[in-house]
Structures are given as structure tokens and as C-alpha cells.
């Protein structure tokens, strides 16, 4: 265990709205508890700013337990900060040193425009999901849950892909701002399960088309997305997405 309290210099991206150019602002914080989470540290900063009559830093956050996918900060050059497999909300200040300067930026990608400061609009992900990220089954239409056994291996692998929290760290970390990891996770989940089969080809074509239309970059297989994904989604899913897409576009009638 290091020190209980540390002092920090924060370089925070401030941008009034989408149209504003934006700039970095520097803040000093003293006596930050190393037990606090990163977002709690920002809370402390904001409390200080409000009392001083200044505008607090706007940032997205909600569950603060690493599952809702809302928090989204690019910290010292890394999506969700220096600790791997961790969302910003679960990153704790014990991973920083006394006197350190921390640079905090929003996710940067054309399809994720800045709303204010560190808050970005990720509705592009919802649009990709709406394009085909579902099984078309109306409520009440389902056969018995055990009517169709699914090999445990397939179920487990589908789960690994389904663990995606849609935070967008993959896009933020990718040097090309590609959304392939996000799309591949959903496509994989359904490609691996029998329930996903009827719409398998149509789904991948539609989701990729929407992804492209929204202006995400092209995947160059650097693997940065996988390294920064807080849920450890593997780029094996991207290989599967490529395969699914190639096979779907080479199948006549689709």
C-alpha cells in the first residue's frame, strides 16, 4: 500500500457543445484518497468547481460497477485508463502516483460527436443494433426453453461475445475508430446460437452496412480494441464477423 492521499494535476478536455472547438483546462487536486474511484475523483473536482462558481466537467456515468457501459474516458492515452479489463468507474486512484499529471479526453470518433466536455453521443451503436442485432421473435412465440439443447461450449462462447457492454472503448482505442469489435460481438453471439440461424446472413449484412454508413473506420487488425475492452471481448469475433460477412455476401439470394 502506498500513500493514503495523493495530489494530482488534471488536464481535462473542455468543450461547451458539439460546435465548440474545445481545449484543455488544467486543474489541481490535493488530498485525493487512493481508495476513491476515478469517477469519484472527478466528483471531488466538480464539487470544488461548483463551489468556486465554475462549470463542472460533464461526463457520462451511471451504474459505477462496470456493467452499464456508460462511462467513457480516455485517460493518459488509453480508453478507460491504465488498468486493463477495467471500466473507468472501476479504476481506482491507487493506480496513480502522487504528483502525477493525468490527461483526460472524450472518446474521439466522427460517429461519436462530443455533446459536452467528456460526454459523447454513442447512439450510433443503437442504430447498428436496430439494423439487425436481434432475433425476430415476438413475445409469446417461444417454444419451451429446453426444447432445443445447445452444446455448453457454444453457449459459453456465445456468452463471451454477449458480455459486451457497448461502451465504445473499442472504437476509442482503435487508431481507425473502427466499430468492428462491437459489431462482431453481437454477430458472433447469434451466429453461435441456433436461435440466430434463420436471420444469420441478413443480420450480418445489415449490421455491417449500417456500421459503414455511420462513418466508423476500417479495421486493420491492430488488436488495440481487444486490449482495451473492459470485458475482454476477443478479436476472434472479428475473424468470425469477416467470415460471416464474406459468406453472406457470396451466398446468392441475400
Amino acid at each position, binding site marked *: 500500500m502506498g500513500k493514503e492521499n495523493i495530489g494530482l494535476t488534471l488536464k481535462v478536455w473542455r468543450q461547451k457543445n458539439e460546435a465548440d472547438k474545445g481545449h484543455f483546462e488544467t486543474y489541481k487536486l490535493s488530498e485525493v484518497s487512493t481508495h476513491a474511484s476515478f469517477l469519484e475523483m472527478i466528483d471531488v473536482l466538480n464539487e470544488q468547481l461548483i463551489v468556486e462558481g465554475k462549470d463542472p466537467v460533464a461526463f457520462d456515468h451511471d451504474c459505477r*460497477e462496470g456493467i*452499464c457501459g456508460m462511462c467513457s474516458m480516455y485517460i493518459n492515452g488509453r480508453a478507460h485508463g491504465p488498468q486493463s479489463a477495467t471500466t473507468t468507474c472501476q479504476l481506482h486512484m491507487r493506480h496513480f502516483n502522487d504528483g502525477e499529471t493525468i490527461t483526460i479526453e472524450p472518446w474521439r470518433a466522427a460517429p461519436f460527436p462530443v455533446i459536452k466536455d467528456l460526454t459523447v453521443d454513442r447512439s450510433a451503436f443503437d442504430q447498428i443494433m436496430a439494423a439487425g442485432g436481434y432475433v425476430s421473435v415476438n413475445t409469446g412465440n417461444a417454444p419451451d426453453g429446453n426444447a432445443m439443447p445447445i452444446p455448453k461450449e457454444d453457449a459459453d462462447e456465445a456468452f463471451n461475445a454477449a458480455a459486451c457492454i457497448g461502451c465504445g472503448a473499442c472504437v476509442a482505442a482503435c487508431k481507425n475508430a473502427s466499430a468492428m469489435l462491437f459489431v462482431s460481438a453481437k454477430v458472433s453471439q447469434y451466429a453461435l446460437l441456433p436461435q440466430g440461424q434463420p436471420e444469420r446472413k441478413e443480420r450480418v449484412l445489415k449490421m455491417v452496412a449500417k456500421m459503414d454508413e455511420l462513418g466508423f473506420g476500417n479495421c486493420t487488425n491492430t488488436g488495440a480494441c481487444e486490449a482495451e475492452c473492459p470485458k475482454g471481448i476477443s478479436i476472434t469475433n472479428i475473424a468470425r464477423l469477416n467470415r460471416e460477412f464474406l459468406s453472406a455476401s457470396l451466398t446468392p439470394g441475400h
Partner: protein
Amino acid sequence: MKLDAKIPAGALPEKWTKYRSTVRLVSPANKRKIDIIVVGTGLAGASAAASLAELGYKVKAFCFQDSPRRAHSIAAQGGINAAKNYQNDGDSVFRLFYDTIKGGDYRAREANVHRLAEVSGSIIDQCVAQGVPFAREYGGLLDNRSFGGTQVSRTFYARGQTGQQLLLGAYSALSRQIEKGQVEMFSRHEMVEVVMVDGKARGIIARDLVSGKLERHSGHAVVIASGGYGNVFYLSTNAMGSNVTAAWKAHKQGALFGNPCFTQIHPTCLPQTGEYQSKLTLMSESLRNDGRVWVPKTKEDAKAIQEGRKKASDIAEADRDYYLERKYPAFGNLVPRDVASRAAKEACDEGRGVAPTGLAVFLDFRDAINRLGKDVISARYGNLFEMYDKITGDNPYETPMKIYPAVHYTMGGLWVDYNLMTTVPGLYAIGEANFSDHGANRLGASALMQGLADGYFVLPYTIGDYLADEIGTGKISTDGDAFVQAEQIVTERQKRLMGIKGKQSVESFHRRLGKIMWEYCGMARNEEGLTKARDMIRALRDEFWSDVRIPGTMEEFNPELDKAGRVADFLELGELMVIDALVRKESCGGHFRLESQTPEGEAKRDDDNFAFVSAWEFNGLEGDPILHQENLEFEAVKLTQRSYK
């Protein structure tokens, strides 16, 4: 006002089947002409919005988060109950019904709970069909586990992320309807008022959180699915944005609020470490299957641990008090949530807590690791241990976890009848936002079940009963006086908030409210404390309205203003909770009145005087709320005092 729960006639097991076959319908051609507003996109809201849209209604769905997928249902870990009896261990609809009624300490409505148990199986089928990756056995069939001390294995799960997977399933169904144009989705929108026309809910005023603009939306019915109000305690396992605003606005427009004091305190959460703490993190209840809860026998040892002079491993076996095993030999560490929470509080009140704050107990896996090996423990709880390590920096394989109870779920909520309609015609409440199914205490893995039951399989049927009369209404204009006035009221309220220009942040008021609630309306309550709390909350509310500082303007993205609106509502709700707790002079479920306990210090229920639902009518902030009682009648179960000795 006379409360009519509209429970259908007939024997309990047949009520729902019969009712479903006779409830009025709306034809497909007419459904197209009907707009339904759904506020909230958690399990209840998303499943309802999707199912209603599939039926042909035009749906407008609202959520304050940036995406419907982020609703806090996503954080549920443990699982979802269903009376499938896949394990052949004797489970049945009746048993699930009975366990839920008993677990709720006999303060829930039988007919609703029975219906919940009846539809539980269909939920699993539906989710599997959506591609929800539930845990499976090697034979490829669905796996179950026993949860929260039940005697059958009826809990379906998806690792420790069941809520996430179920919500993503509902979100996918919702997304499909959005693509089809059946659902219009409004993310980053907060409902700030219910619009009433001729005594019926006819729409809402919503704030576009990005632009700050107020919007009018009309509908033939409004469904509140905005979740629970645990954040009134400031520190809870809820998400930061979870709030009571939608439900509270409904309440102020005439919807009665049921059992507001029934809150669930979850025993296995991470303790608070400092003033900066913004929320508490839940560790799955399943940990109690293998972990042993203890504190040192003596205050001296506890003090030494608090001050860092001793470690857990320095305390000899003979000097440890495994208090749950000692007090409740039959159930041991698996006693229900409320009992485990209270026992932890007692131990800490005696000065035997183990964190620097004195507010924590040990959850120790040493014996389980010795007995089963590290690999088995890792397979069972690996991800939870990692999460604990990540947050606290301690390794639970080597040193016991420190846990403390935290507010987790609110059983209370808007009072609804059998149709899930509030006392305001056309205004519905589903999921955690209503009071309906969990009585005074919710069983583990039942919240997900209720949310999805309401959204997928109950509301889509029952809403027809009301909407059948609305087919001739036609499009509801948002230019009418009611909409104009409602918008004006919201504007005035926001202007007033912005105009205070005081010195203290919204957060600081919220934190202070939370402390009052936790201290006087938390795990143990008494008349003196509650009376004091009521005055304190009123004073704090006055202070808030005269000294809060909200930066920025109304016409922009302003999270501080959003938060101020929510805290203002919590400051009103808090008082109602205290009043409700004062009136209920018995101990039951999550509500423990110090005046009502057995000689051994256990909760004492009073069925003669309190076998009713408290449904509160808003009566202005200066006046006292008016209590209505829905008497609970039990046909199928016999009331017994819970005992876990």
C-alpha cells in the same frame, strides 16, 4: 377514495387464466390508432415497449441514459426465478408463489404473486428464444441453482451477469421495433411531468437532456417503468441516475404510493471507505453459500483491526464470532437478506465492526478454500473475487472480504391494481416502480422475474381493458390547455431552481438527505428517530430551496440541473417514507421497528393490525398525506411468523 384492486373472482390458480381470456381486447385496426408512452427502458419498460409494439400499438419510449441498454436492470447479478421444475426437485407454481408471499412477510397481494409465478416459465422460454445465453449443463440443457436459501433450484442465470443478458434481450426486441418504426425512442430524455386531461393521464412533459428543451408527448396511456427509489439514501447499489422523479410526478398527480417505507437492505455490499463515496457495490448473494460471516468476539480485537494493528488472520478461531451460525443454526449464513443485514448492523453497533470506519464484517472463504480447494472456489466466484480485488486492492483468496449492508431495492412504489394501473386512469406502473409483488421483502432472483413478467406477459393483456374505451379518442393534441399548463409548471419549477443561486452543491444536499434516511429510516427504525427525521428532512428541503447552487443554464446540457430536479423529488419522497414507517408500528420484512420485536430481538409482525398495504395520497407539501388501506386477504397461505432459528 375507495381502493379497488380489481382482483378477478374465482379460485386463486384460475384467476389469471380466466381473466386473460375474458379481458377486453383492442382490434389490430384500432391498436394502430393508439399511442402508448413508456417511461424507462429497464427490464419492465423495454419488454413492455417491445411487446406492446409487436401487438400493433404505437409506442414512445423514454430513458434518461444515452441508450435504452444502460438501464440499471443491467447490473443485476444473481439470476431469475422460474417455476419450471427442470431439476425435478418438486418445484411448482404454488411453491414459487408461496415462497414469494412468505419471503415478502405476508404483505403482498396473493392474486398478483400467483400470476407472477404462473408466467415465470414463459419468461425463460421467451428469453431463450431471443438468444439470451443462459448457463447450460454439458447435455446442453439449461442449468439452475438454488438462490437466497430456497429449497429448490429454480434460478436461471448467465454467469454473474443475468440482468445484463436479460436486459440486452429485451433491448434487442425493443431495437427491432424501433427499426420497424413501431417504437419511437427518446434517449437522454427525462419525464418531468404527467399531463392530465379530464382526470386521465394523457401524456407527459419530457426534458431533452441534451438541448434542455421541454417537449410535449401525448398518449392514450402512460406507463411508468422507471425503477426504484433506493437512491433516496444517497449511498445505495443503484446507478447514479436512478431516481424517483417519474413515479413521484405521477404520485403528485394523484397516483397513490404504496408501502414507501419497504426498502431492502442487501447484506453483502462493499463497505464505505470515505466521504467521497458515490455508491456502494453489491457482491452477489451467492457468496454466502461458501463464505462464513464473522466479527471478533471482543471489542478490543475489533478495535485493533479497525486501527490496523491486527489482521483477520491474527484472530484465533476461538476468538471469532460466527454470529449468523450461532444465532440461526438452521439457516446459518444463508438467512434472508433482512435478517443477515440486521445482524451485521447489530455486531457493528456493539463496536465489533472490522473496517477503519467500524462498519464492516468479515466474509471469510478460508474454510471453503481448505475444504474444496482454491480451484473450486475460483470456478464459483472467480469473477466476484477479481471485482473485489479491483475495487478494494485486497485479495479475497488470502484475506477475508469486508462487507456491509447497503440499500438495494425498494419493494414500495406506485400502488397498482390487478391490471397494473395506478389510481390515475390510464397511468400504469410496472417493475420496481410499482409496489405490487414483493410485500415487505423481496426474495433473491425475483426482481428480474417481476420486471419481465409485467412487461412481457401481464401489461400487454391488462392494458387492453382500459384502451378498449379509447379506440374512439383519436390523436391527442399536445396544444391543449393541459399540455400548455403542464409545460409552464415545469418551466417555472426549473426557473425557480436556477434562480436560487445559493452556495451548496446538489450533491451535498443529496448526501445529507441520505444520511438522515440511513440513520433513521434504514435497517432499524423507531418512533423517536422517525419523528426527528421528518423535521430534519423538512428543514433540509427548505435549505435546498434557498441555498442550492446550479451552474449553467436551462437551455443546455446541464447534468447538475437534472440532478437537482431528482434530489428535489427525493427530498419530498423521503418525508413520505418516514411517515409511512411511523404509521407501520410492526416489524415486517425490510421494515424493522425497534418497538416491535420478540424477547430474542427478532422482528415481530402484527397481522391483526397491519395486514394491509399503505397507499398514500398526496395532499400538498404542507399538509399530511392521506392514508388509504388495502386490506390483504390470504386464502391460499396461512400466516406464520418467519423463523430461521
